[in-house]
């Protein structure tokens, strides 16, 4: 009765969706440059990029922009534009003359609704509250004032960096067509440095696509995305009904604070972004049944959609979930558990003072923490699953993504370590500032809460990417530079095998008939078991096969021999 009603209700929703899906099959939604137009309902048919022509998508927009400058994208505060000429690094003086265009041209390239508010549906809102990607500027962690104080500086930094990039491209003999390059220079230390300092916002989609070798993937899979969409509409509600339900629920819980994902007061249809997001996620669940739909992929796809068209978003999602984060979104989430184990090993190595605070002594003795992951990994897992989307403010997220596609997944580990480092500093500072706390010795419970609180709130305040990029992540003294992709891959293998060994052992012990239930239970949980299950091999970080590690592994061997 009850169930039947819900099911039929769901079916009808699905049917309604299918209708929408078919309707828009040929109109994959555009990336952000077109979005402002998307709000003018009359241009909707016109902005459809058509299949396989995603390239045109960017071009058609930029054509309209000939002559408008980079400042369109960076100067959402009109009063700061006059000062651009002061920049010491500023060579492209011609940029200066076009400042005014930004606010006059409603179709400008900028995604900042504040300067390009179309006279359409969203005019009723105060667009100055939204940033250039359509995200709300302030929230419970960042005030409007803080935002503007930061943006005032950061927007100039972005302008400077863009000029540097333009120079680099010119010197490499690469031309940018209407402002957006379709190729980038070959990999080099210099290019890496440039990427780490941030890719110009309006090139991001193209750059991510290029560095992640998306075109290669797409060329091998021509037409696949459309077939998936067709397949999805045929069998929806059946095979992956469960996934569809969760997807549907998450569509509006992805970027509710982003204007492109919000239904406007006069809209008769759902926002295009929501429709695209649905199609990408549904297509993916058909494409990779091992993963289906995993919450957090909505954030990945949602952010990609702001920079790339739908088909490319889909393939980037495929690349992220297979190449960068293998197994992380699988039904058993084993990949994320492995990565948390790797992260814990890294914390032990790189943040030795923080380590004892997050891992209880009894689990730190051997590798038990790789199996019984400490509770903080429940929070850090989301950093990996959504690649920091929603964890840190948007500009910081985007800078991480720049590095992710150029340097691969080890950047997520470095970022997490840097974040934990900041948390550690925040906790220390808070204690320093609070006399009551300083004099009191905290109980373990209080300490745990303190750490959890820091891990939850500190990242949300990282409005300024420089705060973590310059001051921690790429700072020499923190020595994270030794942590490269090779190391992470090696570490992942190690953790995977350790977890597997332990699991197998647990299965065997658990299934063996035992006279004494309690004994069986003890074997299952006790440290002895873990010790015998996990070999004494201790992971050695390449740079730091220190005496301490060496000693530990000898000690361990001796202990084992003695036991025998």
């Amino acid at each position: 009765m009850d169930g039947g009603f819900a099911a039929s209700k769901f079916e009808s929703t699905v049917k309604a969706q299918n209708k929408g899906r078919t309707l828009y099959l040929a109109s994959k939604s555009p990336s952000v440059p077109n979005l402002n137009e998307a709000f003018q309902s009359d241009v909707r048919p016109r902005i459809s990029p058509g299949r396989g022509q995603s390239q045109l998508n960017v071009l058609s927009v930029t054509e309209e922009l000939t002559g408008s400058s980079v400042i369109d994208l960076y100067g959402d505060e009109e009063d700061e534009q006059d000062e651009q000429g002061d920049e010491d690094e500023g060579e492209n003086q011609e940029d200066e003359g076009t400042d005014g265009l930004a606010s006059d041209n409603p179709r400008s390239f900028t995604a900042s609704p504040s300067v390009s508010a179309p006279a359409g549906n969203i005019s009723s809102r105060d667009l100055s509250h939204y940033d250039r990607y359509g995200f709300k500027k302030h929230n419970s962690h960042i005030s409007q004032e803080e935002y503007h104080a930061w943006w005032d500086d950061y927007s100039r930094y972005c302008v400077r960096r863009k000029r540097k990039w333009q120079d680099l491209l010119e010197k490499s003999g690469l031309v940018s067509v209407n402002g957006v390059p379709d190729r980038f220079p070959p990999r080099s230390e210099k290019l890496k440095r440039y990427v780490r300092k941030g890719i110009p916002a309006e090139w991001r989609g193209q750059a991510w696509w290029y560095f992640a070798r998306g075109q290669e993937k797409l060329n091998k899979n021509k037409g696949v995305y459309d077939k998936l969409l067709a397949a999805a509409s045929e069998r929806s509600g059946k095979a992956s009904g469960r996934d569809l339900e969760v997807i549907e629920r998450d569509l509006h819980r992805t970027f509710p604070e982003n204007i492109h994902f919000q239904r406007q007061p006069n809209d008769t249809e759902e926002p295009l972004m929501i429709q695209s997001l649905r199609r990408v996620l549904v297509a993916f669940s058909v494409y990779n049944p091992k993963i289906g739909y995993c919450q957090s992929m909505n954030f990945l796809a949602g952010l990609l959609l702001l920079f790339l068209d739908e088909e490319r978003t889909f393939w980037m999602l495929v690349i992220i979930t297979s190449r960068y984060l293998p197994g992380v979104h699988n039904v058993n989430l084993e990949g994320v558990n492995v990565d948390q184990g790797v992260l814990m090993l890294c914390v032990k190595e790189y943040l030795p003072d923080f380590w004892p605070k997050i891992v209880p002594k009894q689990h730190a003795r051997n590798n038990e923490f790789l199996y019984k992951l400490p509770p903080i990994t429940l929070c850090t897992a989301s950093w990996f699953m959504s690649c920091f989307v929603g964890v840190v403010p948007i500009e910081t997220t985007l800078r991480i993504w720049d590095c992710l596609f150029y340097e691969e997944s080890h950047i997520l580990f470095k970022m997490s370590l840097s974040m934990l480092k900041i948390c550690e500093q925040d906790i220390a500072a808070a204690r320093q500032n609070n006399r009551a706390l300083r004099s009191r010795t905290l109980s373990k419970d209080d300490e745990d809460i303190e750490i959890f609180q820091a891990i939850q709130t500190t990242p949300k305040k990282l409005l300024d990417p420089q705060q973590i990029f310059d001051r921690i992540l790429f700072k020499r003294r923190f020595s994270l530079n030794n942590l490269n992709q090779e190391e992470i891959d090696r570490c992942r293998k190690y953790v995977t095998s350790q977890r597997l060994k332990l699991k197998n052992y647990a299965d065997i012990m658990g299934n063996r008939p035992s006279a004494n239930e309690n004994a069986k239970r003890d074997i299952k949980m006790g440290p002895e078991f873990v010790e015998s299950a996990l070999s004494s091999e201790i992971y050695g970080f390449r740079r730091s096969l220190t005496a301490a590690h060496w000693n530990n592994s000898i000690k361990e061997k001796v202990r084992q021999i003695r036991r025998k």
Partner: protein
Amino acid sequence: MSSRKKNILKVIILGDSGVGKTSLMHRYVSDKFSQQYKATIGADFLTKEVTMDGDKVATMQVWDTAGQERFQSLGVAFYRGADCCVLVYDVTNAKSFENIKSWRDEFLVHANVSSPDTFPFVILGNKLDVEESKKVVSNRAAQDMAKSLGNVPLFLTSAKGSINVDTAFEEIARNALQQSQADADAFEDDFNDAINIQLDGEPSSCGC
């Protein structure tokens, strides 16, 4: 009374995706509601000072979890040490109601609680504010379920309309406090036993 009085009450909210776990937590802790909550990945927590029976003060640590089934494999470690588990369903979603029992079982498997029969659960049927025609879980069915799970307290709530949320959490806090004291007493008993054994036996030679 126990000397090892824990002043932190750990409460875990479980339930299907989208039933309103995050909303309930925010409504209770900061008396706010927003249509703009994002899907929870992993877990979030908030704390609130609670006063019970006029004088007992404790910090309630409320954990909000991801609802998608696969996330259960992440939660294993942090179920431990919970003092009360809140099971949430959505009155407009029959499936979420049917899953209540499996959420409870899942919790018991991983939480490793000392006595599963007496561990306190509280069931919340959320979204009471929606129009009558959309409700698919009858009060009767909910009461029957609560009874069958061992007379678990049941509250029909609305985080949006701020209906019954405080009342429900008062009950949750009371249950959590009771559980935490019971645990502390049990711990003390164990502890005393251990000492007795030591005193009775020969001092063991140091293990090397």
